[in-house]
């Protein structure tokens, strides 16, 4: 692939420190996304997909924390600026966002990174009009361009006092007129009829599909270079899902945004993505191009996922579900082994001794011993091994 790397995540680890104990939600995730590429992360609920997205965006809230890992992001301008201060955070045109301070990272949100969240109804503030909320996203970037230093100040140039003044004086407002107009344009761009009128309506007056379109408009407001879409269609009806996916694909093709698409739906992955990472228990267990992963899955988990897709045209075989559930990610309950072994039809003794690792730089790679050698029945675990 000739295109350059836009985003490279290495060894990302996110922990939640809860009362029940430490939860290892993301356990050393690594992946690379090239400029303009659509990278899919697929996995069951609870596999750590969404937390991975939030970790990349630096949006993990307490009690969670990103404890380790690197998030390299290509931005020549940022690399220039940061290079002298923190040389270890810069590698050519790539910058390790995890080594920047919180203000620098915050300044990238909306401008370079944008997010589409799962549930549009809860991702908009119910008591502010949709247009106003999109206009806010435009306004943040307008102000950032007007005064680049302010975004990296403690208050982003807009503290409590500015808010009080703007609230008390009827002639003053955070969001300026041009940003409101731009919000209406954006609503039109994502295919919302009567955008000027709809902009003045509240989220509860929108349908789910329309609101998801509005969220896409909001994500485009800052003309970001990377879009992280976290289950963008999960909360929608099936027919609306297709429309929203078409819109996303169209906008992606038009703007060339690098996209990280997170979903549990293999159909969505097949339709949208260039490359895929399959996530299980906080790890990416297999990665490769769409064709590699779908046509020649190596990891028994990937095989299981693909085996559980209903085939509309083919034979009327029974679907094969993967037995068991996603493991609890409590640190205390996680041994140093392959986490899939207890559900794996091909588990071997060596899977319990040491967790398998990727071969580095392999375009198609799996965290499984089966990627290195064939299944060895002599080494297989006896039936019912984990029941005891």
């Amino acid at each position, binding site marked *: 692939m000739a295109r350059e790397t836009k985003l490279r995540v290495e060894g990302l680890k996110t922990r939640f420190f809860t009362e029940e104990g430490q939860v290892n939600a993301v356990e050393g995730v690594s992946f690379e996304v090239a400029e303009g590429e659509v990278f899919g992360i697929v996995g069951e609920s609870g596999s750590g997909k969404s937390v991975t997205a939030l970790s990349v965006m630096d*949006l993990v809230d307490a009690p969670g924390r990103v404890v380790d890992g690197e998030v390299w992001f290509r931005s020549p301008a940022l690399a220039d600026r940061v290079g002298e201060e923190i040389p270890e955070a810069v590698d050519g045109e790539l910058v390790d966002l995890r080594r920047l301070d919180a203000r620098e990272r915050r300044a990238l*949100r*909306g401008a370079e990174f944008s997010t589409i969240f799962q549930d549009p109804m809860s991702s908009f*503030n119910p008591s502010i009009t949709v247009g106003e909320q999109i206009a806010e996203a435009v306004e943040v970037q307008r102000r950032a361009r007007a005064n680049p230093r302010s975004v990296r100040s403690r208050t*982003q140039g807009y*503290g*409590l006092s500015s808010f009080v003044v703007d609230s008390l004086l009827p002639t003053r407002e955070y969001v300026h007129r041009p940003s409101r107009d731009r919000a209406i344009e954006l609503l039109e761009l994502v295919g919302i009829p009567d955008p000027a009128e709809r902009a003045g309506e509240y989220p*509860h007056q929108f349908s789910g599909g329309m609101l998801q379109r509005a969220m896409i408009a909001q*994500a485009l407001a800052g003309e970001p270079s990377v879009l992280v879409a976290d289950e963008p269609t999960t909360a929608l009806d099936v027919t609306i899902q297709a429309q929203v996916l078409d819109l996303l694909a169209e906008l992606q093709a038009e703007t060339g945004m690098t996209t990280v698409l997170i979903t549990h739906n293999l159909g969505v992955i097949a339709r949208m993505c260039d490359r895929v990472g399959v996530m299980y228990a906080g790890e990416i267990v297999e990665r490769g191009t769409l064709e590699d992963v779908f046509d020649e899955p190596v990891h028994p988990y990937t095989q299981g996922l693909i085996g559980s897709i209903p085939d509309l045209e083919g034979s009327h075989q029974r679907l094969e579900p993967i037995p068991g559930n996603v493991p609890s990610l409590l640190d205390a309950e996680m041994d140093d082994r392959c986490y899939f072994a207890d559900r794996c039809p091909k588990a071997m003794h060596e899977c319990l001794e040491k967790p398998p690792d990727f071969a580095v730089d392999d375009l198609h790679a799996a965290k499984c011993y089966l990627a290195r050698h064939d299944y060895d029945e002599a080494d297989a675990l006896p039936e019912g091994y984990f029941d005891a």
Partner: protein
Amino acid sequence: MGFGKFLARRILQGVFVVWGVVTVVFFLRFLTPGDPTATLLPPDAGEAVRQRLREQLGLDQPVHIQYIDYLTDIAMLDFGLSMREGRPVGELILVRLPATLELAIAATIVAVVIAIPLGVISARRRHEPADHGATLFSLVGISTPNFWLGIVLIMFIAVRVGFLPVGGRSVNLTQVVTMLADGQPQYLGRWLGQLILPSIALGTYFTALITRLTRSGMLEELGKAYVKACRAKGLPEALVLYKHVLRNTLIPIVTVLGLQLGTLIGGAVITEEVFAWPGLGSFLIRRITLRDWTAIQGTIIVIGIGFVIINILVDSTYAYLDPRVVDE
């Protein structure tokens, strides 16, 4: 539905509530034993005198006529004459109403000005010393009885330190305004001074309550998905916190504030007694012991109207804070 229609409906509902209050108050009189003329006339008054008084007061009419007469009087804001002094009840209430409103509003202002910032700080610095301090304050505040706090404030600040008056309401607002126009601003200071201790005594409980409400409300809102979405679009933290989160937190707070203001109009009886504050609460209690029926009825109706007005204000604030309210 627009806001005007919403407001009109609320006002209409309010009128019905007041009508209900007036009706209950009217029939309440028939539930208590004894002839009203017994309290009005000396025990040795003859039957002829009693009968004349009944006719004078319209008590000889059938109940439904009395009821309609009563409703007409109330509709014209005529609460009748006090059974004790023979002075118009409306006048007696009007003397005390400003004192009550003054104290209720001052206590609410104390509560809002202290509690909301404290709750916001507490939620933002969760599990940090500032949060522990605020939580301790609200626990103590909620557990402290008003009258005790009032007495302690009088003992230490008014008596021992000699700062601020012990009690009473020596200056009223009309005097302050006339004196200000006269170039004597010191009356403003006296007016404020006499208000400070009672409003602290009365407002502490509500300050504590609203601090807790603000804290828990903010924490709940901060966990919602839209907050993450706000941060994802790079919005300044001040806007996330105040324009988005605090505004949504205010909805339950406004409810409690409204209820509180309503109760305070009904009378902060104990605080009024401790500070010798001539408000409606102490007036009502005194009139009950005197069995001054017309005064009791009038006061209850005025308190009811106060409640209704505050509820309409609260509902309108809801509509401003949460547009979904108007649509329902």
